[in-house]
């Protein structure tokens, strides 16, 4: 058995996996909500980065990580607001909007970080969250420390996942969201405020991505660096696909991505003979194979990516 698979190190591996999963999971949930409402959010990457910057700024200015979380969500959501305005009001192509948001966010956060934190754009260690063990649950062997000795934002994720599930599948809003994503014209004639629903979805999507970004700063690395989202937003997009546009499966897919990430980090340090790139690329390959294999059975929301215009039928 290769040494990187042995039991002692695998608990450690399992423990790092959720931490790497959380930012992807938040953003993937955001992606699911946006796409269910009919808007591609290719700007997840930029919104995560904005959230990371907001998290750093809030924590830096007030010394309180909660302020960082709130500012991170606000920054992410403002990215969502831009996407919503361009794609819903002006009917700009959603992919182009998303790419523009990624570009602006990359430049603007790097620029503002230098204004706020000094010339090299990085901070000293910021006040952040530390793990809180939940009494009782955390002493369960193996899964206890993995799931119940984490920081508050992880517990927030545990609450948000069922919340999003309930929102999409058990609430009247969820029905409106899904109807808007499948057939906006029909939803509109049934009295659903299509533009408003889409706007809220994209705003929530941005807020969740921002929260994911804030998590990276406030619970993982405690500093802000330029372009620190480093493709996690695109991974989240892949998680949306692999999770078949379902919040629960999207989180499971994020967990798979987080595990692959933890594994490749381990391999980079411990075992240079196994090419770690396999594990970085694995989630993307899996997503493509999932598309090939599942596309007939599970399809994306029918209206995703298409601008909706009330007065005309294209």
């Amino acid at each position, binding site marked *: 058995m290769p040494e990187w698979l042995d039991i002692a190190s695998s608990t450690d591996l399992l423990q790092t996996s959720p931490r790497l999963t959380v930012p992807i999971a938040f953003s993937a949930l955001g992606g699911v909500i946006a796409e269910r409402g009919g808007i591609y959010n290719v700007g997840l990457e930029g919104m995560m980065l904005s959230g990371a910057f907001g998290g750093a700024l809030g924590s830096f200015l007030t010394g309180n990580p909660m302020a960082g979380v709130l500012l991170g969500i606000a920054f992410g959501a403002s990215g969502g607001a831009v996407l919503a305005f361009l794609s819903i009001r002006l009917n700009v192509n959603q*992919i182009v909007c998303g790419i523009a*948001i990624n570009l*602006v966010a990359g430049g603007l956060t*790097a620029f503002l970080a230098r*204004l706020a934190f000094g010339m090299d754009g990085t901070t000293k260690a910021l006040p952040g969250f530390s793990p809180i063990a939940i009494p009782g649950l955390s002493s369960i062997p193996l899964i206890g420390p993995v799931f119940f000795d984490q920081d508050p934002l992880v517990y927030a994720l545990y609450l948000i996942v069922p919340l999003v599930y309930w929102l999409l599948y058990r609430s009247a809003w969820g029905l409106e969201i899904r109807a808007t994503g499948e057939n906006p014209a029909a939803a509109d004639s049934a009295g659903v405020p299509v533009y408003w629903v889409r706007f809220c979805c994209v705003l929530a999507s941005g807020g969740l991505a921002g929260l994911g970004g804030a998590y990276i700063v406030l619970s993982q690395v405690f500093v802000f660096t330029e372009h620190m989202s480093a493709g996690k937003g*695109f991974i989240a997009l892949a998680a949306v696909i692999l999770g078949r546009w379902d919040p629960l499966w999207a989180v499971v897919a994020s967990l798979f991505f987080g595990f692959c990430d933890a594994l490749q980090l381990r391999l980079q340090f411990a075992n240079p003979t196994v*090419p770690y790139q396999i594990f970085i690329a694995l989630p993307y390959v899996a997503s*493509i194979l999932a598309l090939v294999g599942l596309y007939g059975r599970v*399809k994306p929301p029918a209206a995703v990516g298409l601008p909706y215009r009330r007065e005309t039928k294209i």
Partner: protein
Amino acid sequence: MGVVFATRTLWAVVLALLVGSVLFLIAGANPLLAYRALFGEAFLDYFGFGATLVKFSPIVLAGLAVAIPLRAGLFNVGAEGQIYLGALFCTMAALYLPEFYWPLHMAVCIAAAMLGGALWAAIAGLLKAYRGINEVIVTLLLNYVGMNIVSYAASGPMMEEGAPYPYSPEIPFSLFMPSIMPPTDAHAGALFGIGLALILAFCLKYTTFGFALVTVGHNPQAARYAGINVRRQIVVSMMLGGALAGLAGGLEVVGVKYRLFQSFSPGYGFDGIVVAFMAAANPILVVVAALFFAGLRSGAQFMQRAVGVDSTVVDAIQGLIVMFVAASLSIRFSDSRWGRMLAQRRSMEDLLPARGKQNGEKQNA
């Protein structure tokens, strides 16, 4: 139509630059001086223009790589990955083939680069044509697979012995692309970009191949009735785009880096999306837009030194330009060629099998 399009884009760029000047004011710099430093260095200085051309070469090819599939109604978001595969194939041809008559060897390297990109894009093209899978998602995902393949190659089998970080050995000196503006780094690759843009513009307008491609983009139903093989056009246009992006990657190897580096592209493929979009997928306008973007990128460093404003502002301004151009074009959306292309892309979706019912039909047949 083209005139309206160009002027509208121009106004949007001006507006974006105006909004961008707010960023300079925030940073406490005079925007006029900053822009003069930026564009003066990028276009009016001999060495600066050389640096602009170095960046122009990959950006224009990546722009064409996005623009050509776009004319057939396809979104190629994967130019970045295709650039990586092109560079990989090119380096392999340069390093592992025995050295022979150099112009021929150079041609083989360039052909290998185009092949690498084309094969990578073919995956997305085939999946789109025969399974109806969204090419945007597939090309986006393939970017990361491509980057990691190169990362593996550069840090594993192809890595130079004793190298401090992952890169391959240097390619033979005879394969270095000659400079067109000595002593600057500007290499002949820029001419490839311009030449190919002219050829492609001609092909799209005057050849049956171009006509078939554009017809598929305009109206796939009509194209099918006219006897055009829509599926083949999809695959071919994607592969053509991939070949152009692959060429961009190959030229980076033979023109600038002279070896294969891990993560050598600073996102040229994504710049290509922006450029193709600004140019409304018109190959000639792609050249103009690419020159402008290359100038922004190359002048940024100089501006930072001259005016003391951080070069990251330029990234933000690029994003603003995209947003303003996008917004300006969407006013009276359906009239623009862009709007028409997108509307027709939808009719292609309806034509292809994959979703629900049609899949069932195929299984029955």
